[in-house]
């Protein structure tokens, strides 16, 4: 009976490890290729570990495109999007969850409607609006529409709704105003929500491709994702160069993920299954 169970466990591990291998291998291959010379990457049969371990591909791509600047652009716009969206949505979500004011239901129904509309619907007019504001090829254009989110508001409202009402009623009787209640009482209590939303937004802002591709073409104002698509064109047969670009693009999110594993995974459960 016991031996049978051990055997069963072994099979489970083998199947799971096989899956892990398939999941992780492309990342391994990405890293290994990035440290090869272009010639070696095209060798037949292929070498697994680089014979001449070299970081040449990395220095090359920094010469081809202003990657240092592109990196800073991506970090900067991601941070602004996270801080801005979380602040704007959390403030509004508190009002929708806890204060009765004229027009509340009407406005909230509009927000819910935005949630159901696919993003393509807004894209052409957003592009034309950014153009009209003279913001094409600016960093502002990269984050501006992302500061406002129906989803973020909806998510944070759920968190505020789950808190007991008595907390603020006591504070209101003590003469606290709404700003004090929000700041001192409610905000610390919705911290898990803020963490979940921040991770969700950071992942999206870092990885988003179509919007930055549309809005900016100046190499100094690019984000990493569209820069990789440029690299693919310019480095058509330089695979170590392409993979070096891929490695530097995924590394910050991977590091964040390994540090905040639990929050990432719980965040998916929160942002995925609504209600």
């Amino acid at each position, binding site marked *: 009976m016991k031996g049978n169970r051990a055997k069963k466990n072994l099979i489970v591990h083998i199947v799971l490890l096989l899956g892990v291998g398939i999941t992780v291998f492309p990342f391994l291959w990405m890293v290994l290729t990035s440290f090869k010379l272009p010639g070696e990457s095209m060798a037949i049969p292929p070498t697994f570990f680089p014979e001449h371990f070299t970081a040449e591909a990395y220095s090359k791509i920094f010469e081809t495109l202003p990657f240092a600047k592109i990196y800073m652009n991506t970090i900067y716009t991601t941070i602004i999007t996270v801080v801005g969206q979380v602040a704007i949505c959390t403030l509004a979500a508190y009002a929708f969850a806890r204060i009765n004011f004229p027009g509340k239901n009407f406005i909230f129904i509009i927000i819910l409607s935005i949630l159901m509309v696919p993003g393509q619907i*807004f894209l052409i007019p957003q592009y034309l609006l950014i153009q009209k504001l003279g913001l094409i090829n600016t960093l502002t254009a990269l984050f501006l529409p992302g500061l406002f989110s129906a989803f973020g508001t909806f998510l944070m409202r759920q968190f505020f709704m789950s808190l007991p009402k008595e907390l603020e009623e006591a504070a209101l009787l003590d003469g606290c105003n709404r700003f004090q209640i929000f700041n001192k009482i409610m905000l610390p209590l919705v911290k898990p929500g803020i963490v979940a939303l921040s991770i969700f937004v950071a992942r999206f802002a870092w990885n988003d491709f179509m919007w930055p591709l549309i809005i900016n073409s100046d190499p100094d104002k690019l984000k990493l994702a569209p820069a990789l698509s440029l690299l693919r064109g310019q480095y058509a047969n330089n695979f170590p160069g392409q993979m070096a670009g891929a490695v530097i693009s995924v590394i910050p999110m991977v590091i964040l993920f*390994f540090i905040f594993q639990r929050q990432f995974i719980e965040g998916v459960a929160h942002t995925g299954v609504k209600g």
Partner: protein
Amino acid sequence: MSGKNDSSKVYSYKEKNGKRQRNDWIAAYIFIAPLVIGLAAFYVWPFIQNVWFSFNDVNKFNVATFNGLDNYKKLFSDPALWGALWNTVKYIIIVVPISIFLSIVVAALLNASIKGKSIYRTLYFLPTVTMPVAVSLTWRWIFNGDYGLFNEFLGLFGMKGHAWLGDANTALYMIMIVAVWSGIGYNVIILLAGMQGISRSYYEAAAIDGASSVRQFFKITIPLVSPSIFFILITGMIGAFQVFDSIFMMVGPENPIYPKVLTMNALFYRNAFETGYKGYASAISMFMFVIIMIITVIQLIGQKKWVHYD
């Protein structure tokens, strides 16, 4: 004398209450103002504009001229649209069931009491956090017809290599493989959350009745995680309408087969920003909106009818 006093007391209480309510309103409007202004400028007004554009010809200089139902007429006679819709449907039919099946297997194995559960979970989740563009670039390299590792791998089994991404008959399937690969981690997390919510007592009762673990899986686990499965099904269907990054990066607009492997979102992008038919692209986005609304309605009905809730 005392009566007058009382009424003034009531009055002042009411006044105080009214003042507090007014302060609440002001606070609420201040709280929602940034959001409402931003959503109005970047979402509500653009929605109205997009509806209007779909009845216009919007030229390269972004000047709109009304052309009635022309865009919609073109929509229904455009082979490119039906091609893209068919590609999207194929994508749903193939990716969603395979992804659900594999995710259930992994989630069920992870739900067993085994060692290293959280390490497995983390590694399976990795593709979900990494940039789709970078991941697509890597897979493009693996599927490369001349030097790609995939062909080498097939060679081990005596199979002939192929330029998988250069052939209109195979490119979309390669993109689907990547979609399954990158979607499993997310689905597993959703399913595991569902499985961990199932009370142990069901399994204990079944074990007493002599039900095998396979039977328990099909009779207890599957029905009780059906809401999670249904959620994955719906998000998978809607997600197929958003596929863009992988097609753009793995095939790319410079490739002659690109127009043949477009999905709906890629077709929208092509018309809006590559060939510059913004009016027609608006009509495409309206068409996508209608389909996604239908899926959402199915979700709302289906949730009540087909899904077993605990």
